[in-house]
């Protein structure tokens, strides 16, 4: 790769890192404040909004129920598998569609329509057609998470500079080498942006699918707690799912900075 553009040097050093951690903690003040006020004003016996210290009891009840490890594993494995399928399928289809202007134009109304169907709406239909299988759940998650990956790959493909392709031809690269050394690296930033948007969607649809089909998982656990009016359990599960979402957010942006370090900066 030619060092075109060049990324600004990483803000390195322990000092920069510790100030960014301090900034993060400072920014948490409003959230922590609300929780503290809630703790002092709320009560343990409130059926609707039990105070934060009561959530611990709910957490213990869930742990004693014994379904937590299996549910966590099921949710995470479904989510990761579906995301991997969406990544490969979306990148391949996107590269195909993006390689021709005509294909891009003739597929865009269909894609726009499919994208506008709420992903959750597909779940009951898929349940009826394919039955309650893991394949059905994976399919619905892929259906939801594939679009940002596909569309960003399409625009990355359409944005590959013609000069770069011509240069590879002039250099006498074989079609395979042209693809693996020139086209794929050019697509990577686009695919990654798609993955960044698609990953949270995939997690959400995984949880919805568990709620709607009552299959083991975190989504089912939190909905069951709500149906049994176990408020402390609902809030404990909310915290757990929130932490998962946060970890996902951090993980995805860490992957982005790590992988894109050697690429020219995104233009936007």
């Amino acid at each position, binding site marked *: 790769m030619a060092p075109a553009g060049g990324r600004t040097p990483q803000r390195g050093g322990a000092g920069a890192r510790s100030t960014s951690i301090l900034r993060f903690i400072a920014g948490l003040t409003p959230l922590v404040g609300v929780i503290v006020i809630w703790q002092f004003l709320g009560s343990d016996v409130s059926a609707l909004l039990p105070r934060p210290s009561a959530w611990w009891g709910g957490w213990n009840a869930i742990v004693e129920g014994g379904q937590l490890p299996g549910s966590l594993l099921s949710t995470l494995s479904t989510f990761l598998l579906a995301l991997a399928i969406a990544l490969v399928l979306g990148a391949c289809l996107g590269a195909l569609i993006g390689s021709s202007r005509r294909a891009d134009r003739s597929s865009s109304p269909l894609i726009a329509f499919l994208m506008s169907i709420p992903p959750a709406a597909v779940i009951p239909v898929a*349940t009826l057609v394919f039955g309650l299988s893991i394949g059905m759940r994976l399919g619905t998650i892929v259906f939801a998470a594939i679009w940002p990956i596909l569309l960003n790959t399409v625009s990355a493909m359409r944005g590959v500079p013609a000069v770069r392709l011509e240069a590879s031809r002039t250099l006498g690269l074989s079609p395979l080498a042209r693809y693996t050394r020139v086209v794929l690296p050019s697509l990577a930033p686009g695919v990654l942006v798609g993955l960044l948007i698609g990953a949270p969607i995939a997690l959400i649809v995984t949880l*919805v699918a568990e709620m709607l089909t009552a299959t083991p998982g975190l989504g089912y656990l939190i909905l069951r707690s709500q149906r049994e009016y176990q408020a402390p359990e609902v809030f404990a599960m909310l915290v757990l799912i929130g932490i998962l979402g946060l970890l996902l957010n951090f993980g995805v942006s860490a992957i982005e900075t790590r992988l894109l370090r050697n690429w020219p900066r995104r233009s936007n």
Partner: protein
Amino acid sequence: MSTERLSRAVNLPGLAVIAVILLLWQAVDAVGLIHFAYVPSPLKIGSAFVSLLPTPSFWGVTLHTLGAVLLAWVIALLVAIPLGFLLAQLPVLRTWSMSSVNVLRSMPAVALVPVVLLTVGFSIQAEILVAVAVLIWPTMIATCLAVRNVHPRLDDVANSFRIKGSQKVVKLLLPAAWPPIVVASRLALTISIIVVFVTEMIGNPDGLGNALVSAQLTLRPAEMWVYLLWVGALGVALQALLDFAARWVLPGLAPVLKTGSR
């Protein structure tokens, strides 16, 4: 000339692709090549749609869902855009709140549904509350970024024209920051449909989401497919309406919307 413009405005190959898929679907069903008990042919879905169309309950659930979607969207924008402006203008506020926003923003939306159902009960308020709680954060962050990305030279312009305070916001910042805010609002409308629909499916026994689930549970596949396609069509129509309105109110936005749709 006019045919050329027509072919540019109406994406004929794109519509042809959809038509071919529908024809193939119908043909496969007619020949009996593959038979799924719960995948009715497009004609059957069409006739189910025609028979549902005059029923008041069909329009009742549609209006219920549309009302919740639009109300949640308007409330979220009214809260998020001013807050975004405030965040952009006050660095202190950003330092002391931004990571709270990021934590709340990364919360998977559906996890809020059981919590809200528990506290508010099964009602349209629950749908709106969940949707607002999800929509506020991305819209607020987009507004904040849009205002911060306004070129610093506009500050000099404000100084030389002696424009200050609220006048500066109305006359300079708002017009300059508008395009990304409109793009974010449009995305928020899509998310609003998704969230309201999920809440209806899981919780509130009303609206299109519930109609879809009950059509599934009572084994009426044609009706179920009608609701699925109807929601998709409503989403496309709302987006088109919003684009049209944005283009009409802010003619300079057209190119931005074009790139934003991708």
